[in-house]
């Protein structure tokens, strides 16, 4: 099987509202940034392109097709799309390369969550007969999950506030962060409830923006003579859509994905976890069996800004950046999709 190299990554600022910019205008700066990192012209210079986005966020059928205008698709290119976070577009691209159908791929994810009411929009991804007609929003579902954790004494509200305070502090070094700074546990705990037991600070601030990445075979990376990180393992697992059938306090799908991706086969210096709610970072750290010496979300994670449909790809990009900068030699990245961590992807990155 061909080894996969990550050679470029770029992410936009996390904006509360991206102004007048449409999808193309959001995507283009990130594409040009990754092309420049490798010395490419446009999408003609890679073998495959795959994007991740969600048409429900724009409220227009086939809205993702407009994104193709950012690529330079004349003459025609090989292009695909997932109606998911772009971490899964990365997964599709890896399959494409491993099957020998491509040596390189461009991946991008984008979203304008500010166009609609995100928690309500996302309720429409629930099962269409029982849950979607009830309009149960994502924050309420996450609150149910947090309540179960608290009632079973699997964590405390202080533990959740500690996650928020650490992420905000780490985000001070993240130039793209929407939210960062020193904040005391006491002041977080003094905040009023939003959807009990969640406070506003427990919910990652949603943001508009885009992210892009280029991956290729190791041979191609050498040919381009660019620094790269090896993607040594990746897997994703999904749990049933029936929330009552799941143990919401334990992310079984993350555990399985971590096992097959080979998380435990070496030290985990850094873990970038896609935890849209503070208590979920704790569930994920346990599912990944992270030890005390692992730095969790040194970028601030999505608590710094949650770029819908790009945050998962960005977690992988953050670990990639630290490896090529020589800061670490091995790290883990995670992406999630669906209510209460329903679907999880785990990737292991190593220095070349």
């Amino acid at each position, binding site marked *: 099987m061909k080894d996969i190299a990550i050679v470029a990554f770029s992410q936009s600022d996390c904006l509360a509202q*991206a*102004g*007048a*910019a*449409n*999808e*193309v*205008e959001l995507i*283009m700066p990130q*594409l*040009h940034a990754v092309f420049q990192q490798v010395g490419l012209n*446009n*999408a003609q210079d890679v073998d495959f392109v795959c994007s991740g986005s969600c048409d*429900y966020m*724009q*409220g*227009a059928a086939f809205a993702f097709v*407009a994104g*193709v*205008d*950012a*690529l*330079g*698709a*004349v003459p025609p290119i090989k292009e695909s799309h997932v109606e998911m976070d772009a971490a899964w577009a990365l997964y599709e691209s890896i399959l494409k390369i491993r099957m020998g159908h491509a040596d390189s791929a461009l991946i991008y994810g984008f979203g*304008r969550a*500010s*166009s*609609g*009411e995100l928690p*309500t*929009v996302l309720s*429409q991804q629930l099962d*269409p*007969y029982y849950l*979607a*007609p009830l309009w149960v929003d994502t924050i309420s579902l996450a609150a149910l999950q947090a309540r179960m954790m608290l009632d079973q004494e699997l964590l405390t509200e202080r533990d959740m506030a500690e996650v928020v305070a650490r992420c905000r502090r780490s985000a001070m070094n993240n130039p793209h962060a929407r939210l960062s700074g020193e904040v005391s546990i006491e002041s977080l705990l003094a905040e009023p409830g939003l959807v009990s037991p969640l406070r506003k600070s427990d919910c990652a601030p949603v943001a508009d923006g885009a992210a892009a990445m280029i991956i290729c075979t190791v041979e191609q990376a050498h040919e381009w003579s660019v620094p790269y990180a090896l993607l040594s393992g990746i897997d994703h697992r999904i749990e049933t859509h029936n929330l009552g059938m799941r143990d919401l306090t334990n992310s079984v799908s993350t555990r399985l994905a971590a096992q097959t991706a080979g998380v435990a086969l070496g030290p985990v210096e850094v873990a970038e976890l896609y935890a849209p709610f503070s208590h979920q970072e704790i569930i994920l750290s346990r599912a990944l069996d992270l030890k005390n010496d692992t730095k969790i979300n040194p970028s601030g994670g999505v608590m710094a800004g949650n770029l819908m449909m790009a945050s998962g790809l960005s977690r992988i990009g953050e670990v990639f950046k630290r490896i090529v900068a020589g800061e670490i030699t091995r790290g883990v990245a995670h992406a999630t999709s669906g209510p209460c961590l329903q679907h999880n992807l785990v990737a292991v990155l190593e220095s070349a």
Partner: protein
Amino acid sequence: MSEQAEDITGIETPVYLQYHFTAGSAPARFLSRIREGVLTGQRCPRCSNVYIPPRGSCPACGVPTEEEVVLPDKATVQSFTVVAIPIPNNPIKPPFVIANLVLDGANISFIHLMSECENSAVHIGQRVQAVWKPEEEWTYAMDNIRYFKPIDEPDVPVDQIGKLPITGLEG
């Protein structure tokens, strides 16, 4: 079982979601200019193609189009169809003509109506010009132009359609 359960063949679960739609910076610029009766396209810095209405990028090259180009309201028919059936909620009574039109100086077509013409005489390469609504009715919309009507100019050869300069046939 005492009672036979009724077959359920469907349930109604209406979806209402509200959005603040954004056309984009480039389309917004186009719309604010057409509010003033001016047709504004954008030129690709790489291949020089002019797009109207602009999306903010050259889809062929994948680069931003920032240079604005004011275009005349004369165009050429690239293709057309005569609509003979009534379309629900469309106030226009058939038969009517919709056409792909390329403005002089532009390299991409847009769809608009044709009128003040013999439907059976509409043809590819035909020269047309915009018939605007009265200025006081102008808004941020393409239908500030009511329709395009034929003008007395020679046809454009098929291989020249979409390649005319801003000055039109003479230029």
